[in-house]
């Protein structure tokens, strides 16, 4: 009986959503639409751009931004369903293959940097810094069911339970963190609170003295009063806090990473798509800082504009993720001087 009620509610909900979607489509047909989907990490930036762009166009153009994750976004993008794909890592080999099989070529545009932040509760007074090795001890698959207290990671720390909070398995953040810390993408212990919703993780760490978690810098910055970021010992042996400055000078490594948008080069023929993408590059330095991400140097956006004009397709990453990339190194890869 209860299942039936639920089913009815579900059917009603589906019917309602479908009709609403239908109505929206009818409205949408009257004005041009730019379709964006992909990473939830990149979402705040693209959403800010879309809002401002629609305002300047006085509502003549509509920009829709979805969040189905970097992988999910590429699935739709390479199927020709979207014009732009948000990505918190470069396009991977199998995704390049999928795009090629549908004859979809794309322009890769790095738009900002993110600093993955490792955070603890503000009243945690024992962790002063963390090394990659210590993070690995906590997060590697071998730790599953074994590493349960803080002093197992470092004997100087108290014998308190270690409560871990981290990204869910479908996010680009999870892919990047595991690759940078454990050494292999998607390789992680499983007995922690995993959520695709970063607000859940913020709530968990902010209310638990014994907690440690990781997520994008934007969410740390927005909740800086309730959380404490931990300095990470970088490749040069220095403990560095995540910030705009340390990302720009490359000292916050290996947890800083570039984020991208990919534009379908066929869609770029449509004036509204081209205008939006160009707007994105021109406004980067201004609109990105309020979102909590780190904008690229002005010359990078100029180079992006040049690539859009020349329709330079393809990726400079060769279908692989690069860990610990600094802004300087990215500029070199993109051959921007």
């Amino acid at each position: 009986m209860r299942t039936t009620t639920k089913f009815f509610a579900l059917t009603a909900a589906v019917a309602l959503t479908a009709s609403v979607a239908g109505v929206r489509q009818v409205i949408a047909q009257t004005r041009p639409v730019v379709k964006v989907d992909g990473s939830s990490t990149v979402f705040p930036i693209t959403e800010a751009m879309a809002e401002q762009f629609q305002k300047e166009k006085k509502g003549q153009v509509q920009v829709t931004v979805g969040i189905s994750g970097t992988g999910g976004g590429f699935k739709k993008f390479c199927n020709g369903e979207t014009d732009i794909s948000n990505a918190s890592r470069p396009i991977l080999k199998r995704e390049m293959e999928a795009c090629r099989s549908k004859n979809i070529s794309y322009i890769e545009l790095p738009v900002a940097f993110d600093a993955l932040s490792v955070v603890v509760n503000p009243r945690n007074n024992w962790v002063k810094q963390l090394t990659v090795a210590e993070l690995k001890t906590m997060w590697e698959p071998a730790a599953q069911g074994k590493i349960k207290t803080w002093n197992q990671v470092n004997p100087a720390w108290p014998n308190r339970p270690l409560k871990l909070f981290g990204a869910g398995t479908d996010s680009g953040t999870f892919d990047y963190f595991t690759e940078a810390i454990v050494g292999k993408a998607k390789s992680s212990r499983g007995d922690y609170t995993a959520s695709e919703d970063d607000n859940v993780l913020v709530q968990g760490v902010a209310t638990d003295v014994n907690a440690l978690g990781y997520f994008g810098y934007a969410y740390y910055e927005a909740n800086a009063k309730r959380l404490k970021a931990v300095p990470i010992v970088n490749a040069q042996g220095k403990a560095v806090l995540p910030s705009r400055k340390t990302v720009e000078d490359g000292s916050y490594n290996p947890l800083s990473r570039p984020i991208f948008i990919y534009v379908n080069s066929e869609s770029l023929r449509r004036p509204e798509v081209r205008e939006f993408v160009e707007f994105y590059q021109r406004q980067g330095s201004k609109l990105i800082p309020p979102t909590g991400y780190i904008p690229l140097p002005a010359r990078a956006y100029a180079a992006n504009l040049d690539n859009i004009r020349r329709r330079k397709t393809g990726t400079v990453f060769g279908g692989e993720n690069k860990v610990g990339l600094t802004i300087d190194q990215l500029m070199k890869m993109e051959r921007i001087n």
Partner: protein
Amino acid sequence: MAVQSTRGFAAYEAQRLRSKWMDRIMRVLTGAFAYFSIIVTVGITLILIYETYHFFNELAEQGISWTQIFTETEWTPLFEVPKFGVVVIVVGTLMTTIIAMVVALPIGLLSAIFLSEYAPPKLRAVLKPTLEILAGVPTVVYGFFALLVITPILQKMIPGGDAVVAGLNALSAGFVMGIMIIPLVASLSEDAIYAVPNLLREGSYALGATKFETIVNVVLPSALSGIISAFILAVSRAVGETMIVALAAGQSPILNFNPLDSVMTITAFIVQVSLGDTPTGTLPFFTIFFGGFLLFVMTLILNVLADWFVRRYRLMY
């Protein structure tokens, strides 16, 4: 005259035929809708069984012994070292359910007794609908209530503060779930108590019993089957509740018997997997159906139990 009466008879015949057809149409129509829900229930059950079969198939294909479902004490189906110790999420589910029942059953039953035995009719007319409003609050609101109101209060009240009480914990989620279920328990048991014929009460008074003695010795035993089935329905409501536990109980897949710590329930696991884009046909995908199957079996057992109880203890009057 004769012609007229024939015509009258014909009209009467036509009318009768129409009514007959109307009757048949109504019968088929209402029947179709009644069967619809049965078909849906059967369909859902078959799909659950089918996908659960695939789950075990997939387990075998990946060389994972199905016995580990019962022997393992870790639950990490999405990760590199997949473990399927279902005891982790079953314990989580039972813990939040038991906490909810500790809150909902006594409060619900006592309110029901007050409403039907003590409250004057005017008060009852106000109280009962008010209580039922509680049932109309969306569960997502209850979830945030647990997370943002009850948990901080618990952290202040319980000695040790947040070193002892985790920010996401089973107690807070279970407590709020209990509040949500109160109207269900109260309303259903009140119906059962209210239905006890006054003859029984009057008989008890005539024998010199007080009101309290009448309630305890006559009214409650007479309404027992209804009350028990209300309880069991409440339990299956708690077992299947999703939003509150997903928001406030922590989604932490670690075997844990401490209600002040985070737990993951079966429903919270299903939510976690469905939020991401798990590819169809993979082991994690089938795992959510296995979770659904577990829930289904748990509520089915409870419903059968309720049914048996009602049959066994129903008093005929």
